[in-house]
């Protein structure tokens, strides 16, 4: 019997974490440094004062123009003719370009071709950019593009996943992962079930929309200021469309007003168009997408349509399963190959599937090209198996929690995934049992059943769902990072790294890591914008990897400088290395104590290089797509949530009443930031599964194209009672930076607890005898119809 996690020892969102002096996990920091402390976000003071500068806040450059694009009004059509004379003649218009005016590459597909920067003879979704305008103001540019006269020859559009599957219309070939003989295992099992689920997509709704400014340079190059998670890719694509070398393009990315995956590949088109217009006009061009244009023209989380057939024993333990995940990729590959892969990798979530066949299809539809979004397909993959858990439980008349427990990966056996990676250091059993206890699950389950028995209209539900999420880019080469650290002669430190700050606190954490290395106050470290001339060839800040990769790279850079300082001290003061200590903003050399500033000056005078790059690549990972076998993930991040909801069986309205979360972040580098990531991810995940509904009409036009019609959680939607705890004393057993664990994406999927709890409440209508089918997002409409379906069964 494993021992439970002592949640009382945990850092939680109830214990004040706002002090820089907090002692975390009983680990007292010697000296200063920063790791393990709840340092405030490096930009917090500026953000609250309106002083933090986002791209659109930058002072206008002399002669700056504003861009807009003319958009396709057809989902699939050939362009017969284009009359742009009225556009050219419109007030304020300086330049109008089409794909003919692109000097270099016309395709800006990030991995595979398929994304024309401006339409090439045909359009493949409503909203596709066809031509671009530079005008003297934002509004004049937007008004001008509406004046184009474009004639189309309509082509047949594929607008549903079912249609795409029937036509085998794919952006990339199907792929299967297989372990054992699932068909035989299903047939041989005591019970069989099958089902299907529609999993909705999700608009990123970063509060800062897409924006880039391009400024021509004196040598035919371009400086780009962008809100992008992937500055190096912006650099590459801008260079390619302009047909100039990479060293003539500089990309600067100080901060994003939110990214969530939506600015991984899909920030680049607007930077490229701004650069093309800047190149033609020889003037700076800003391209900011108006909110509605942003929602129409940029991709979203992939909607999926998944199905399964499972065989299980009398205890509900899975013996074999076939899962098919069908991603709606939109019109082009973008990142869909890897996204559907990740849906497949996470089709097990936390459970041992035994004999399993998982197939993934990448359906091509005539909609905007769907893209990265927090979880990167993982959430959509997990939904199927969480549905299976609920389905098995209702079939056997058991609490879904019991079924989830009985199917968890084992530690010594039952521990191999369907892609043949061994699940190591698995603590989910302890996490779940600890959370079950700390959240008072069993007593509340009883109280809810009693409430439901006496409440004819309102019904409550509860669910506990776990998450196991694989950490690493599944594309191996992306698992690398660089950093650049300078120590100046006054002892202040400049830090650059390849990651980009989108609010997640990456700059804060990496600065803490550098401060920790030198044992100086974290305020001594200034983190600059991500710039392609400082740290080249960077990977996107994605896959929850920001701190893992860039923290290690920055640590390496700091260590290199520190070693030089130690070597210098040994030589100059004739001491052994052990006699040189960094402590409390000081460098102690034998008997002498220098302030870090003093010692930096001394080292400079001694001609020591006080600048270093650092580099890191993730060890151990590999995956062979040909065999579907390997170890794509360095480690797994784990966590679990319990949510309690109340529904109205007459209207389908609902509220999340309470949520308890226990998340394993390893040894936290910054508990307050980690808790912020967990809370925000959970609410975003809950929004994805509840009120956030993407609606396209029969012509393929997005109707939910603004925040009046697309509803992300507002303040009242956050659980009234919201308890978050970090698993205490749980350093990552893999050698990650300070043994921390990634936190950006994993808690997003904890939102599944709300969806499962809604189903629990609906099931209560027929005394838990019937399993409700609840596609997502579970809008009040879907909840009401699920209730009515259960009532109809009861009536029979």
């Amino acid at each position, binding site marked *: 019997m494993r021992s439970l996690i002592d949640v009382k020892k945990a850092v939680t969102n109830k214990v004040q974490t706002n002090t820089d002096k907090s002692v975390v996990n009983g680990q007292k920091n010697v000296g200063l440094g920063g790791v393990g402390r709840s340092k405030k976000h490096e930009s917090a003071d500026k953000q609250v*004062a*309106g002083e933090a500068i986002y791209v659109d806040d930058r002072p206008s450059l002399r002669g700056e123009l504003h861009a807009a694009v003319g958009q396709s009004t057809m989902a699939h059509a050939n362009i017969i003719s284009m009359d742009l004379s009225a556009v050219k003649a419109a007030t304020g218009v300086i330049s109008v370009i089409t794909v003919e005016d692109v000097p270099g590459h016309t395709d800006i597909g990030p991995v595979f071709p398929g994304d024309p920067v401006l339409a090439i003879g045909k359009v493949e979704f409503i909203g596709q950019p066809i031509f671009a305008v530079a005008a003297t103001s934002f509004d004049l540019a937007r008004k001008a593009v509406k004046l184009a006269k474009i004639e189309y020859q309509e082509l047949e559009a594929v607008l549903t996943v079912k249609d795409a599957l029937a036509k085998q219309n794919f952006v990339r070939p199907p792929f299967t992962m297989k372990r054992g003989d699932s068909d035989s295992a299903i047939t041989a099992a005591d019970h069989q079930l099958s089902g299907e689920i529609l999993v909705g997509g999700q608009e990123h*709704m970063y509060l800062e929309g897409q924006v880039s400014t391009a400024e021509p340079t004196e040598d035919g190059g371009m400086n780009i200021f962008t809100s992008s998670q992937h500055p190096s890719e912006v650099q590459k694509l801008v260079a390619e469309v302009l047909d100039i070398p990479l060293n003539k393009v500089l990309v600067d990315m100080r901060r994003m007003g939110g990214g969530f995956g939506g600015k991984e590949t899909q920030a680049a088109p607007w930077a490229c168009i701004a650069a093309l217009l800047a190149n033609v006009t020889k003037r700076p061009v800003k391209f900011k997408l108006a*909110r509605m244009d942003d929602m129409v023209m940029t991709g979203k989380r992939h909607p999926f349509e998944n199905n399964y057939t499972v065989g299980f024993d009398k205890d509900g333990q899975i013996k074999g399963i076939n899962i098919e995940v069908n991603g709606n990729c939109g019109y082009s590959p973008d990142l869909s190959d890897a996204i559907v892969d990740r849906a497949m990798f996470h089709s097990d979530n936390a459970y041992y599937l035994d004999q399993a066949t998982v197939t993934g299809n990448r359906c091509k539809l005539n909609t905007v090209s769907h893209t990265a979004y927090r979880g990167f397909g993982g959430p959509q993959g997990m939904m199927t198996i969480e549905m299976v858990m609920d389905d098995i439980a209702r079939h056997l008349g058991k609490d879904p929690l019991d079924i989830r427990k009985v199917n968890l990966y084992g530690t010594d056996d039952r521990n191999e995934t369907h892609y043949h990676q061994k699940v190591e250091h698995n603590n989910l059993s302890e996490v779940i049992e600890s959370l079950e206890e700390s959240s008072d699950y069993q007593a509340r389950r009883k109280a809810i059943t009693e409430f439901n028995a006496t409440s004819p209209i309102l019904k409550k539900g509860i669910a506990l769902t776990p998450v196991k999420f694989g950490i690493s880019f599944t594309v191996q080469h992306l698992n690398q990072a660089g950093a650049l650290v300078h120590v100046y002669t006054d002892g202040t430190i400049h830090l650059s790294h390849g990651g980009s700050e989108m609010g997640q606190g990456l700059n804060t954490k990496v600065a803490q890591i550098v401060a920790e290395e030198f044992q100086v106050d974290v305020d001594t470290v200034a983190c600059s914008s991500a710039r392609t001339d400082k740290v080249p060839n960077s990977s996107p800040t994605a896959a929850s990897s920001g701190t893992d990769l860039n923290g290690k790279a920055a640590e390496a850079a700091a260590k290199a400088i520190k070693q030089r300082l130690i070597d210098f001290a040994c030589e100059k003061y004739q001491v052994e290395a052990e006699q040189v200590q960094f402590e409390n903003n000081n460098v102690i050399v034998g008997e002498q104590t220098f302030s870090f500033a003093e010692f930096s000056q001394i080292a400079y005078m001694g001609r020591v290089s006080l600048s270093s790059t650092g580099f890191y690549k993730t060890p151990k990972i590999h995956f062979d797509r040909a065999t579907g076998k390997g170890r794509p993930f360095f480690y797994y991040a784990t966590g679990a949530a319990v949510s309690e909801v109340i529904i109205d069986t007459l209207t389908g309205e609902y509220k999340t009443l309470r949520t308890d979360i226990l998340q394993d972040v390893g040894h936290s580098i910054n508990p307050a930031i980690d808790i912020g990531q967990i809370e925000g991810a959970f609410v975003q995940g809950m929004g994805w599964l509840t009120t956030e509904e993407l609606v396209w009409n029969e012509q393929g036009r997005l109707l939910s194209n603004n925040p009046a019609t697309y509803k992300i959680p507002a303040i009242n939607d956050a659980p009234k009672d919201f308890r978050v705890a970090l698993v205490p004393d749980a350093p990552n057993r893999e050698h990650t930076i300070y043994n921390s664990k990634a936190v950006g994406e994993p808690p997003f999927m904890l939102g599944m607890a709300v969806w499962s709890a809604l189903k629990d409440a609906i099931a209560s209508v027929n005394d838990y005898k019937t399993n409700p089918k609840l596609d997502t997002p579970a809008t009040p409409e879907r909840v*009401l119809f699920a209730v009515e379906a259960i009532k109809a069964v009861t009536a029979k």
Partner: protein
Amino acid sequence: MVANTIKFLLNNELVKIENLDPNTTVLQYLREERFKSGTKEGCASGDCGACTVVLAELDPKKTGQLIYKSINSCITFVGNLHGKQLITVEDLKEGAQLHHAQQTIVDNHGSQCGFCTPGFVMSSFALHKQNNTPNRAEVLEALAGNLCRCTGYRSIIEAAITSSESAAEDSFAKHYQATVTALTALKKLSAPALTGNSHNYIAPKNIDELATELTNEPKSTLVAGGTDLALSVTQNLATIDKLVYVGNVAELTTIEETETEIIIGSALPYSEFIDTLHHYYPDLGEMIERIGSKQVRNTGTLGGNVGNASPIGDMPPALIALGATMTLHVQGQERTILVEDYFVDYKKTVLKPSEFIKSIQIPKPTAGQTLKLYKISKRIDDDISAVLAAFFIEQEVDGNGQKITNVRLAFGGMAAIPKRAPATEAILLGNSLTKALVAQAKEALTTDFQPMSDVRASDKYRMTVAQNLIEKCYLELQSANAREVIETRVVNYA
């Protein structure tokens, strides 16, 4: 002769605007004319709150007092600033010292990407100016129009709940008297006006000026709160040639009570009549708290909500169910009609050229009357209704128990206009409410309405939920007389 200027305080500086297109929003003015980029554009449609600024204005009820209101600068025209103090995020800080509304967010780790943060700061600032020790419910009400995509809100809620004495001593408190004096002086000026790009704006000060203006220029566009109108400019890229702002018209911005009625001026913002209506009709007060956001309720008006005749406005069904009337005015001529008779067809009304809505009269409740209101939307806060149901039922006790003697069932979202349900009413009228009667009423509703499907809901959902709301109303009425109360509203679990 009207002066062609707009005067207001930008923070503590007196500002005069001349020659600016009156289609300019306050957000555009701040960012593009004043180079103040602290106020952010999230959506330019009043849905996210990132652009929230605060207006301080003289309290009409208390001489020498200011009211602080959060508003969405992205959907407020610059002319509306006249005579007010515009407070922006940059000016809260004094020297290096963050304002309480800012420091608490830092202390609670309430900013991540930071883009929504200035808006939250300003909403919290306005709240604390009016109420230095807000409770959780008051915080949620004040911040429900500010979207955050990063934090999950818990940290922001805790920041805003933190009360502090220091908020009462900020620079705006220090300049309080000077601000009152300056705004009082501005109030005495003649009607402000603004011309730019051949577009005009005027803000008459009394009903005669307004009536004359509209008679002379019948094609003028009335601006009340402008929370819907401004979208035509920011979203559809329209320009309005002649804007007439009614928010300064004295006779249109009052609330009065008689023995039998509450009379609300058409240009009075929601936030100034919500308490009165809540007192007489609790359901109505609670429903209004879910109309738009605090920012929208601080500027949006009853006249605007009724006047633009949207099929999904929340007030018209409530007013129709209550039997409310409205007084229309044209050049000194007034007529009073039932709100119900105002709507003709989709966005078409009986309003004649040059005519405007002066006031709305809501009858006070009498014994035996009940108003039940249900707002059904995807999200509880700041969302447009899929269905708004307003049930006014009057019952009398006779020998056989309670009998319905008067009934008005009105719906929004179910037809091209807000509309009553005559067939369903006919089933109910004169009868006792029973389960069987409710079943008949639900059936009758299908002859009253053939709702449509759109982005908010399907036709089937609209009909099902509308029918179910009749059942819910019945259960609530039963429950009101029963020993054991049946709980029927999830919003009570907020």
